[in-house]
């Protein structure tokens, strides 16, 4: 679309737009319109509707009775006391949980993904088989793997407690998903288990793009493998890693299914999405929940912009060095 418009502008500035250009722009719009309509219906409209509902006192039981109340869902003061999302400790707890989860799980996934990608990149017998095997956790639907891990982590019947007790590492079973000290880590471990293959695959694709000859040049130059990794592979791989991290971080910021299935509405692990769902469905506070959804959207959008800018800045900085 940008291409069609800019070329149109150029010709327009010249004074006479040729018939061919006009036809091309019309064709471009024609091809783009189905996508634009689909996006408007499934993305733009629901988003706008959520934004709107966030400024009303709508209730799930009767949406027609909603009234515009301004910013009261976000912040309002009655009798000297502040109310609303921005001063709700539970909301900020959810934001904190989500950020903690995102940072830790994405960091672990990046490190493990990189290690696995490097192993899969090496030439060994049975590589195809290992590549397929590594992908299995990624292929299992989240609900299924969350249920599976829920059972494995079960305090009485779970295989993990049984194994740890047999080995003598712990002497009493741990309620992994219920215990406040372990609940978040249980969620992180399952998420790392599930999404590391995705990370590995993205990084592997990046690895395979790297030219082979510079490694031979490094060999001839007598540069050791560790130095080659940190001075050659990692810098060249950074664009691929940044893309993978952005993808994963955006995914992690709106985590819902895994946490909901593993730990339900526990405040120890509640994410922004779980909080929003609780307000919207469990408490039927359509207006308040929509306000939370709006904030969630803002935070994710903000993070995306920050990450993209940070990624770009670092490249430019390197160019100047």
């Amino acid at each position, binding site marked *: 679309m940008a291409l069609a418009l800019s070329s149109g502008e150029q010709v327009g500035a010249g004074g006479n737009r040729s018939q061919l250009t006009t036809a091309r722009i019309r064709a471009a719009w024609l091809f783009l319109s189905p996508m634009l309509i689909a996006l408007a219906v499934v993305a733009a409209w629901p988003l706008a509707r959520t934004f709107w509902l966030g400024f009303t006192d709508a209730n799930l039981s009767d949406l027609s009775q909603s009234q515009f109340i301004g910013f009261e869902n976000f912040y309002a003061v009655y009798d000297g006391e502040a109310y609303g999302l921005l001063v709700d400790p539970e909301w900020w707890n959810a934001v904190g949980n989500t950020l903690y989860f995102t940072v830790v799980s994405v960091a672990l996934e990046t490190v493990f993904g990189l290690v696995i990608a490097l192993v899969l990149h090496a030439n060994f017998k049975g590589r195809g088989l290992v590549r397929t095997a590594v992908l299995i956790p990624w292929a299992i639907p989240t609900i299924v793997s969350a249920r599976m891990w829920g059972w494995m982590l079960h305090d009485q019947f779970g295989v993990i407690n049984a194994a740890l007790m047999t080995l003598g590492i712990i002497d009493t079973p741990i309620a992994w998903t219920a215990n406040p000290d372990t609940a978040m880590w249980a969620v992180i471990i399952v998420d790392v288990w599930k999404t590391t293959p995705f990370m590995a695959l993205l990084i592997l694709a990046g690895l395979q793009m790297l*030219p082979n000859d510079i490694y031979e*040049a490094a*060999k001839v*130059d007598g540069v050791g493998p560790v130095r080659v990794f940190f001075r050659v592979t990692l*810098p060249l791989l950074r664009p691929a890693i940044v893309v993978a991290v952005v993808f994963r971080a955006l995914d992690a910021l709106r985590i819902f299914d895994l946490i909901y299935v593993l730990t339900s509405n526990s405040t120890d692990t509640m994410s922004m999405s779980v909080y929003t769902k609780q307000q919207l469905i469990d408490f039927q506070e359509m207006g308040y929940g929509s306000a939370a959804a709006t904030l969630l959207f803002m935070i994710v959008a903000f993070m995306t912009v920050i990450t993209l800018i940070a990624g770009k800045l670092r490249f430019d900085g390197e*160019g100047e060095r």
Partner: protein
Amino acid sequence: MADVTLRSVKKSFGKTAVIHGVDLVINQGELVVFVGPSGCGKSTLLRLIAGLEDISGGDILIGGEVVNNRSPKDRQIAMVFQSYALYPHMSVFQNMSFGLQLSRHSKQEIKEKVHEVAKVLELTDLLERKPKQLSGGQRQRVAIGRAIVRNPRVFLFDEPLSNLDAALRVQMRIEIAKLHREMGATMVYVTHDQVEAMTLADRIVVLSAGRIEQVGAPLELYHKPCNKFVAGFIGSPKMNFMRGTLMEAGSQTTTVKLDAGPVITVGVDSSGAAVGSAVTVGIRPEHILVDQNSSLELPLEVIEELGESHFLYAPLSTGEMLTIQGRGDTTLAAGSAIRIQFPEEHCHLFDADGKAFARTASAKAEEQFDFRTLTTQQ
């Protein structure tokens, strides 16, 4: 600087043997060029010397020491790759100094060394640039610079100029020749471009299907190819080959009846060869004479004018297409007929196995060639 010795070096990839026992001595300070058609194993042989591939048999010696099991860095060689193989994220300076940083040089020493080499290669102004900001020729100079700063015992070049355009290639060729003369370094140079081979080499090694066909100085290969393969490979356009039968053997001249009809005399020593055996006569396009008094008349099918020279293409009655090269413009027209002759001192003769008979033509005859072609043109 060091010499390099290959002793019946073999290499197979799985069950496929690609190098079948190569013996070669590369003297200290010599520039040896490996040439051959694609897939002949010339790059593989270079990579075996570099240590990027393991040999499957034989010995490789650098400076008199067997280096079969040494890693590339312990062989103290430097390699220049066809694709330059520069580190894309590093500046020119970093590219050239990366290999030095591990050895015991101090920062100051490295800086001086890099600047010194950069000056020779006219890279001083480009030291802070990234490879993608450089032209192809500049990149190749950086790659060569990276090799020089390491002060290796042997330089290995793997088709270093094939990614450059024609004009740059000539310029870089001259620079490499100059570098070699100034440094007196041992260099092994792989190329498929025979002009590079002829102009750069002290000695050329012609390879075919993993075997050495002939080793020799450029003009030796041109004038005295030891077999039909080398004769056809060295020289552009290719040598003309005509099948025939040996009529009369001799120690000074040999008479051959060409399958196409004419009986010609060839200046080779064929004493001992059986009369009636199948032979092939070879003559280079630049050596065939256009001569109005000759009895051999051929239809002239195609003319290619290059300005400084021209090519005439004329088929023999057997269908064998002859290429004839002449100086300057031609007054002949395609579709007409030409009369040609094959000067006996310029003819080569090969037996049924492709092995060349020794030529008896004196060096004097070779020198006369230019004069003769010029006079017949007028």
